[in-house]
C-alpha cells in the first residue's frame, strides 16, 4: 500500500466511525469544561456588577484583562488577549516548540487529558484496524485491555519525550542556538538558524512519535502485551518501511497544516455576547474537531499502512470476532 493510499484509507476509516470523532471531541470538551467553569466563576466574581463588564462583554477590555490577570492565581493568570482567535493557536504552538512552562493547573489538566487518550487509544486503533463497527462494548473493552499496556508504553514515552524536552530542547535552544548566533547581527540569519533547530527538534519529536504510533498500532493489531516488544516491532516496521511511513507521516502533517491554515482564515475574534459568542464558539469547535480528526487520521492511516504492508488483508474480510479476540486473531484464518 502506498502512503497516499494509506492516507486515503485512513481518512475513509475515520469517516466510517463518526462516533469516535464525536467521542474524542466530547472528551476534549469535558477535559476543558471544569477549568473553564472555574475561570468563569473567577471572572464573574472579579467583575461583579462593575461597569467594566460592558466593554468586556462587547469586545476587549484590555485594562480589565490585565488587572484580572495580575490579581489572579492559577488559571486566571492565563486569561490574556493572546487567547483570542488564531493567536491562541500560535500561543500554544509556540509554547510547545519553545518549551514554555504553563501553570501547574494547566499541566495537570494536560496530564489528565493524556491519560484519557491513553485509555481510549486502544479502542480507537482497534476500531480502525477492524475497519467496521465494534460497538460501545467492544470499544471500551479494547480500551480497557490496552490501557494498561499503553500505560506501560506511556512510561517509555514519558521517558523519551522527557529526554527530548529536558535535554535535547535545552541543548538545542539554550546552548547551540546562542552559540550559533553569538555574533550574528543579521536577524534573517538568526531566524533561519532557529527554524533549522525547530526542524531538528521536530524531526526528533516526529521520529519518536512515529515509532510510538506504530508501537501502538502493532500492540493492538498483533495483540502484543509487552510495551517494549511493541515498541521494538514498531521501530522495525518503521525501519523496513521508512519511506512509506515517513511519507505518510508528512502527509498527515500536511493535513494538520491545512487545518491550521483554515482556522487562521476564519478564527473568530473577541466578538460580543449573545449569538455571536456562540457562533464564534461553534466555529472554534469546528477547528477543534478538525484537529481531532487529523489526530485520528494519523492513527487510522498508520494502521492502514501497517495492515497493507504486512498484507493482513483478512482483517477487514474476516467474520465478526468474538471479544476479546484481537484484530490479529481475525487474520488467522
Amino acid at each position: 500500500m502506498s502512503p497516499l493510499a494509506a492516507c486515503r484509507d485512513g481518512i475513509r476509516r475515520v469517516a466510517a466511525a463518526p462516533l469516535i470523532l464525536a467521542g474524542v471531541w466530547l472528551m476534549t470538551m469535558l477535559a476543558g469544561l471544569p477549568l473553564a467553569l472555574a475561570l468563569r466563576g473567577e471572572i464573574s466574581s472579579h467583575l461583579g456588577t462593575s461597569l467594566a463588564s460592558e466593554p468586556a462583554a462587547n469586545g476587549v477590555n484590555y485594562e480589565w484583562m490585565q488587572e484580572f490577570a495580575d490579581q489572579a492565581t492559577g488559571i486566571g493568570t492565563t486569561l490574556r488577549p493572546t487567547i483570542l482567535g488564531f493567536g491562541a493557536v500560535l500561543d500554544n504552538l509556540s509554547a510547545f516548540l519553545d518549551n514554555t512552562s504553563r501553570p501547574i493547573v494547566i499541566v495537570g489538566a494536560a496530564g489528565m487529558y493524556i491519560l484519557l487518550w491513553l485509555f481510549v487509544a486502544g479502542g480507537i486503533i482497534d476500531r480502525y484496524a477492524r475497519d467496521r463497527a465494534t460497538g460501545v462494548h467492544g470499544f471500551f473493552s479494547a480500551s480497557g485491555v490496552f490501557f494498561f499496556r499503553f500505560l506501560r508504553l506511556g512510561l517509555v514515552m514519558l521517558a523519551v519525550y522527557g529526554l527530548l524536552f529536558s535535554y535535547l530542547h535545552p541543548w538545542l535552544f539554550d546552548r547551540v542556538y546562542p552559540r550559533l548566533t553569538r555574533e550574528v547581527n543579521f536577524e534573517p540569519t538568526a531566524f533561519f538558524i532557529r527554524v533549522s533547530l525547530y526542524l531538528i527538534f521536530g524531526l526528533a519529536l516526529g521520529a519518536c512519535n512515529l515509532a510510538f504510533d506504530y508501537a501502538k498500532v502493532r500492540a493492538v493489531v498483533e495483540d502484543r502485551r509487552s510495551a517494549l516488544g511493541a515498541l521494538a516491532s514498531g521501530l522495525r516496521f518503521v525501519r523496513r518501511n521508512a519511506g512509506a511511513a515517513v511519507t505518510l507521516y508528512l502527509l498527515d502533517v500536511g493535513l494538520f497544516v491545512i487545518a491550521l491554515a483554515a482556522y487562521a482564515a476564519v478564527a473568530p475574534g473577541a466578538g460580543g455576547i449573545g449569538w455571536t459568542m456562540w457562533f464564534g464558539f461553534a466555529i472554534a469547535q469546528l477547528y477543534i474537531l478538525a484537529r481531532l480528526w487529523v489526530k485520528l487520521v494519523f492513527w487510522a492511516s498508520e494502521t492502514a499502512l501497517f495492515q497493507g504492508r504486512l498484507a493482513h488483508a483478512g482483517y477487514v474480510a474476516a467474520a465478526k470476532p468474538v471479544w476479546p479476540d484481537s484484530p490479529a486473531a481475525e487474520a488467522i484464518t
Partner: protein
Amino acid sequence: MRYLRLSAAASAILASCSLVSAQSMGQMTPPRSPRNASYSIDVRLDPASRTITASEVITWRNITTKPVDDLRFHLYWNAWRDDRSTWQRERKLGRTVRVTRPDDRATMDVSSVRVMNGGQPVDLTGSLRFIAPDDGNADDRTVLQAALPQPAAPGSTLTIEIAWTAHVPRTIARTGAIGNFFFIAQWFPKLGVLQEDGWNCHQFHSNTEFFSDYGVYDVRVTAPKAWPVGATGVVRDRRDNSDGTTTHRYYQEDVHDFAWTTSPDSLERTARFEHPTLPPVEMRLLLRPDHASQAERHFDATRAALKYYGEWFGAYPYGHITIVDPAFQSGAGGMEYPTLFTGGTRWFAPEHSDDPEDVVIHEAGHQFFYGIVGSNEFEDAWMDEGLNTFGEARALMTWYSPMYLQQRYFGNFVPYVFKDVRLDREIYWNRFAGYRRNPKIDQQSAPSYRYYPGLGTQTTYNKTALWLNTFERWLGWPVVQRTLSTYFERWQFKHPKPDDFFAIANEAAGRDLSPFFDQVYRSSNVFDYGIQELRSDREGDNYRTTVVARRYGEATFPIDIRVTFADGQQAVEHWDGQDRWRQYTYDRAERAVTAEADPEHVLLLDVNATNNSRALGPRGELGTKAATKWSLKWMIWLQDCLLSWSMFV
C-alpha cells in the same frame, strides 16, 4: 518703506540661511549653553581586536562660585571589567545576569592625565585613584579622581589631556560590539558636573543613566575605510589614511555627550523634516539591510516627534539628527544621545503595532528631555524618562492611532497582531500595567540610582507618565502644555532639579499643586478609589438610593462620584477623597442604575479600575455574561493547548 521691508525680509532670509548653514556645520550661534566642558578627541577603532586607542583634550571651566582641588571622571566601561563593580552587583538584584566571557568584558585604562598649568603640562597620572562616592565599593572603578596641583578657582579654565585605551565589550547596556556592528557610547573619560556643593559624579549604576555638562565636541573617529560612521553632530571632514582607514571628523556645539557607531553593513538614507513654524531638520538614517523597507517608517516617526514636541514644548535647535537602526541582538536599541539616537525594529515588523514607531518617537523625544534640557539622570531620572514617556504616548496616539497589540512567537521572531486589542494612550502607552504590579516599589523622590534595580523604570517612566497624564486630565492640556513648554524654555541647556519643575507647574496652574506632588512624587502610596455599595430600594413613591464611595488606597486625590438614574438623569458629587469613605443618599422617583467613582477616569494611577463602579439591573448582570464569553474563549485556547499535548499519546 517698501525698500525697508524688502531689506528686512532679505536680512531675515540671509540670517536664516546663515543659521541653517552654521547648523549644518554643527555650530550653534549664539552659544546656547555655558560650554564649560568641551572635548577634542582622537579615537582609532581596531575592529579585529575590538579595541579603541584614544586621547582627548578637555577644556573645562569652573562655573561655580567655589574653588575645587580635584577632578572627577566617569570611566563607565569599567563597570563591565569584572563582576565586582557596583553596576554588576546591582544588576544581580532581581534580574538574571548573563554569564560574561572574558573577551566580552570591557576595560578602560587611562595611561596618562596631564593638566596645563601656566602653559606647562603637569602630569597627574601618579595622583589618580578610583573612588566610590555612592556606596564605598572599593572594587568599583567607574569614577576616577585626580588631585589638582592647585585648586581651580571659580571662573578659571583648565586644559586637561588624557590618553587611554579600551576594550570594546560585547554589547551591554547599549554599548559595545556584535559581529561587525559597533556602537560606542559612554566611551571616553568624562568629567562629572561640578556643582556648588561639590562634584556630582556618581558611580555607574545598573538602574540609571548619565549626567554631564554642555560643551563643544570635536571628535575625529578613525575606522576602517568604507565603514559608514554615524555620530553626534555633523561630519566636517573625511580623510582616507594610507593604512586602509578613514578619519571622520564630527563636530557639535552645545551638547553634553558624544556617541558614535560604525558597521560596514549600514545603509544610509536621508530625509528632511519641514514644518511651517519650526526650523527644518536634516535626518540621516543608518539602517540595517534587513530593515531596508522600513526607512520611511523611521523618518515618519522622527517627524512625528519633531513636530509634536516642537509644537508642544519648543523647537529642536540643532538642524540635524541621526537615527541609528541597531543590529539584531546588539542591545544597543532604544537609547538617546545628543543629536543621535538608536531605534530598534525587527525583520518582521507589522504596521500599526509598536516597533519601530514607539521606540523612535521615544528616543527622538529624548532630544528634548535629556538632550536639550539636561536634568540629572542619576538622581532624577523621571525628569527625562518620565516626561518623555508622557510626550511619546501623546505623540504616538496623535500621529498613529489606531495601533494594536502585538505578540511575538517562536523564539520572539514571528509577530501576530491582535486586531481586537486596540492600544490606548492612557493605559498602554503610559505603561500602566507595569506600574500597577509594583506601585510601592520606590518613592519617586528618592535618588534614582537608589531605586530597586530592575524595577526602577516603573517608577521612573511609568509612574511619571501616568501622573502627568492625570495632571492633564485633571487641569487640562493647556496647563500641562504651558508647564512643559515653560520648563523647556527656561531650562534648556541647563541642569534643572525637581523643584524647578514643580515651581513651573504651580505657576502654570495658578495654584499650589504641592498636595498632588506630595502624593505622586514624595510618596509611594497607592491610589485606589471604589464604589463599595450601591443600593436603590423603593420607599413609598420614591427610590432611596445609597452610594458608599471608599478610598481603599493610602493616597488621596479629589474625585467625582457620578450616580445615574433610570431616566438618564445624573447626580455628580465632588469628593475631596480625603476620608476613608463617603456616603451619598438620594430620594428620587427613579431607581439608580449605576454609580461610578472617578467616572471620567481622571486618576490614571488608580490601581484597581474594576471596583470603581457598580451597576444595578441588566447592566449589573453583564458581568456574568462577560464571564461566560471569556471563559468560552479561554476554553478554546485550553482545548488547543490540550491538543498540543495530546501529541504525546
